[in-house]
């Protein structure tokens, strides 16, 4: 026998061999008849295959060494060989019945080869039959392998073309429609006929003992498919080192596309891959193969995603990165279910990558605390307004709360010292989520910082206004978001409201206490009569105080409109009735004198008007002049 090299040459050799050994006319007829009359060869084929089945049966049951091949079985290798040649030119996937017949034949020759190989063969005719049969089987397996790959790759090519398709082309018209519809939903986009053919081929190759080749071809094709998917969205291999060098603005863009492709894998690509795997290697016997192939594919792809997230985590910590890190954390978390069917090693790796992101998030959040602690400006915010630190912190926290559940997960995995944890479990106040605790800590730091900042104001009234402004801002931000509110809890919110009221009272006392004292009736009457000098003095003092307050406190700011109006209303309620009554009772005692204007400067209505100027933040020159 010649060297096993060229297939074309090989079948010639087989024919020669056959014609040398078998001059049986029926065999020659079969050889020539096979291409011509399908119906009669189909019949012979069926009969042959039955004969082969019986032959294999007998091999398994008999203990006697096999001496010769039954004549009904003898031509089978050549029969199959011609079938192979036929399928080689027509290809699989065109005629289902043809394919099935072919596969059946291949299965039989495989089975006979596998069975014979188990036997020790002394007989030359048997050995030579085995040789022929195994050559044909090998040829068939090679053909199947090529068809397998061809089918796998052809669909990929088609998809690629369709994405840029012009609909006018007939053959691709249907596919492109389907593609447009299903592009987002199905991957991979194999028509069901292809899948059925692929399934047949895989089954036949595995039965033939060519599982290794089948899997290699499958893997190769699918990896290429994934590579194309990834390239299409611009996800190329990116080095850890390069990630360190990219400025954050550009890196954000990379992260966004990473998130998008990982999500696509979770929702479309990986489930699609699992379906394909299950469809092609559908038999129960193939379970281990399926798992191995699926694991191999998703691992190869996922590890690249983890490389990227790992590289990102290595960059310098900064507060602006928190939310992107959390986004990535969530994206990885959502990936796990899609790879559940694979090996546990992969899932461990994903979780490890998540943990890294989580740890980084914790550090960054901790940075917030630090930056609050170290914010030690010596200049007070003019007019007692809301401090930029308050705004920044509250907005940051509000944004962070959108990730409340994720941050909870992240902080829960943070190790806490045993003692602290026990203490917390007893403390009612701390029956709050892990992230809630962090929020409270940040707030506490902010409060402490604001307390220090408030002491920069020499005027105690302004101090109170400052604390009111910031406290109010904080409270409004918390009330404005259900997440934060729920996180911080009712008790905490109530406590803050109480504090605000206290600041309000402080303010009133500081500013208006002495003013009210002016209008106290005590000491005005001397010896039962109203003392004019005392009265004049009182009015004078009132005017001076009121002027001063008006001048100064009009420049103060109360940002929150509601609070501003509340303040004014409360001042009015405090001062106006008192002044009205004072004015009403004592004005006449001064009216008659000279320069009454000097003393009675304000009408009660004026007081109201001037009170309305307070906390507008207007510079003194804009204070309204008395008309």
């Amino acid at each position: 026998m010649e060297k096993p090299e060229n297939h074309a040459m090989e079948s010639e050799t087989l024919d020669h061999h056959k014609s040398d050994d078998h001059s049986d006319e029926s065999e020659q007829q079969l050889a020539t008849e096979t291409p011509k009359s399908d119906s009669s060869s189909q019949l012979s084929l069926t009969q042959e295959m039955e004969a082969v089945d019986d032959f294999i049966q007998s091999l398994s049951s008999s203990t006697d060494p096999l001496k010769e091949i039954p004549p009904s079985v003898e031509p089978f290798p050549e029969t199959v060989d011609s079938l192979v040649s036929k399928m080689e030119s027509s290809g699989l996937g065109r005629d289902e019945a043809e394919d099935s017949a072919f596969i059946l034949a291949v299965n039989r020759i495989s089975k006979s080869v596998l069975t014979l190989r188990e036997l020790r063969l002394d007989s030359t005719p048997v050995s030579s039959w085995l040789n022929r049969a195994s050559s044909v089987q090998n040829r068939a397996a090679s053909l199947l392998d090529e068809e397998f790959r061809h089918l796998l790759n052809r669909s990929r090519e088609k998809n690629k073309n369709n994405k840029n398709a012009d609909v006018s082309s007939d053959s691709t018209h249907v596919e492109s429609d389907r593609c447009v519809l299903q592009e987002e939903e199905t991957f991979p986009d194999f028509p069901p006929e292809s899948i059925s053919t692929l399934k047949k081929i895989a089954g036949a190759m595995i039965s033939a003992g060519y599982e290794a080749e089948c899997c290699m071809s499958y893997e190769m094709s699918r990896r290429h498919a994934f590579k194309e998917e990834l390239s299409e969205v611009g996800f190329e291999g990116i080095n850890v080192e390069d990630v360190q060098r990219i400025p954050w603005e550009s890196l954000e863009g990379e992260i966004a596309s990473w998130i998008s492709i990982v999500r696509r894998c979770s929702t479309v690509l990986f489930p699609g891959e699992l379906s394909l795997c299950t469809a092609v290697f559908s038999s129960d016997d193939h379970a281990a193969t399926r798992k191995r192939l699926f694991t191999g594919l998703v691992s190869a792809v996922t590890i690249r995603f983890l490389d990227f997230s790992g590289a990102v985590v290595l960059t310098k910590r900064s507060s602006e990165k928190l939310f992107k890190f959390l986004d990535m954390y969530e994206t990885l978390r959502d990936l796990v279910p899609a790879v559940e069917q694979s090996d546990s090693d992969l899932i461990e790796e994903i979780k490890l990558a998540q943990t890294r992101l989580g740890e980084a998030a914790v550090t960054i959040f901790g940075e917030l605390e630090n930056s609050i602690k170290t914010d030690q400006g010596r200049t007070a915010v003019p007019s007692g307004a809301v401090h930029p630190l308050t705004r920044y912190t509250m907005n940051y926290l509000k944004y962070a709360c959108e990730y409340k559940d994720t941050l909870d997960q992240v902080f829960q995995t943070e190790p806490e010292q045993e003692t602290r944890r026990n203490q917390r479990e007893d403390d009612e106040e701390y029956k709050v989520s892990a992230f809630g605790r962090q929020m409270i800590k940040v707030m506490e730091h902010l409060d402490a910082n604001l307390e220090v900042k408030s002491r920069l104001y020499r005027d105690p009234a302004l101090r109170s206004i400052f604390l009111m402004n910031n406290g109010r801002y904080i409270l409004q931000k918390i009330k404005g978001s259900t997440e934060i509110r729920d996180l911080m809890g009712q008790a905490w919110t109530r406590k803050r409201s109480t504090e605000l009221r206290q600041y309000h009272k402080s303010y009133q006392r500081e500013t208006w206490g002495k003013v009210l004292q002016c209008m106290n009736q005590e000491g005005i009457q001397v010896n039962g009569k109203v003392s004019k000098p005392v009265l004049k003095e009182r009015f004078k003092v009132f005017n001076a105080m009121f002027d001063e307050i008006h001048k100064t406190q009009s420049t103060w700011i109360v940002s929150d409109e509601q609070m501003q109006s509340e303040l004014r209303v409360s001042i009015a309620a405090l001062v106006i009735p008192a002044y009205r009554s004072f004015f009403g009772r004592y004005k006449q005692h001064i009216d008659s004198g000279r320069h009454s204007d000097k003393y009675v400067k304000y009408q009660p209505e004026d007081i109201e008007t001037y009170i309305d100027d307070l906390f507008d933040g207007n510079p003194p020159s804009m204070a309204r002049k008395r008309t």
Partner: protein
Amino acid sequence: MPATDFQGTFGRSFLSFRRDQVDSNTPAAGSSSHSMEAELDSFQRQVAEKFTDLNASGELLSLEWIGKLLDSFLCCQEEFRAIVFNHRSQISTSPMNRLISEYFERSIKALDVCNAIRDGIEQIRQWQKLSDIVISALDSRRTVGEGQLRRAKKALVDLAIGMLDEKETSLAHRNRSFGRVKDSHSHHRSMGHFRSLSWSVSRSWSASKQLQALASNLNTPRQNDVVASNGLAVPVYTMASVLLFVMWVLVAAFPCQDRGLQVNFFVPRQFQWAAPVMSLHDKIVEESKRRDRKNCCGLLKEIGRIEKSSRVMNELIDSIHFPMSEEKEIEVKQRVEELVEVHEALKNGLDPFERKVREVFHRIVRSRTENLDSLC
């Protein structure tokens, strides 16, 4: 001692430990400069011991030996980490802050090497699959028919192509002909195609350039730096050298993108570990210059063995005429047994080895993130 032992000691507890531990450099902790000297000396000694051991035992450049090298790296890394931790107050001052940050820059370069090696390991796995085919096709417990020989032959050809150094692959594509009558779509299951799936690093990444970057500016610490850092500059230099050496070995042993071994690696004799490391280095350079290994895709011993046994098998198959003589049958059996031997070693060793590489990756990352966190 397996490297995983350290995970318990230095894992989670390490971080919480950090928050409460008083800096051992302060007088209150009672640490003297003498104990620091002892600590640094012990580190030098440990490195020297590890490399002396590597010189003495195991087969150079075998999978097992490289695994041992990685274990040694992990041990040294942990020791280094402890030293850095113990003297962390110094790390934030000059010159240590500069030296440490340079070290971490280097270690990041090593990460890319670890990822690239993963592709190399994957390639070896593909060769293993092909070897598997050959072994099962020529299994002598069953009668070997002509079809099995053809099957084995095809796998061997694929294997030979797959093992070509990447520079030669394009030539091979052009020159070979396998009598395919099919259309151009059906590409041969050649490993060249597999290689084009370089997953882990960017297309422009180069192993040789990365090694050169790792080696650049790796100078022995200046005397004033040593003094100013209380000697800490020396372990930094040591670790950087060990890192470079380990990465160099990995690149030398495994197929990877733009694999080149030209690196100026020299450690002056004054260091305890210089002699064993340089000795290993020289042995490996010699190995790379051997005629039969000059153009191979990786110096891993097992690669050489696969190459050899598959080549011999290939020649044997070509010489077989059917019916097979008993002589040939025996020869086939022997060659298959050889192939099985090489195959088994790799089969059992490759997965754990890959995990080790991953461990190296993770440790370097952890070390870096700890450093980052401590800067906050």
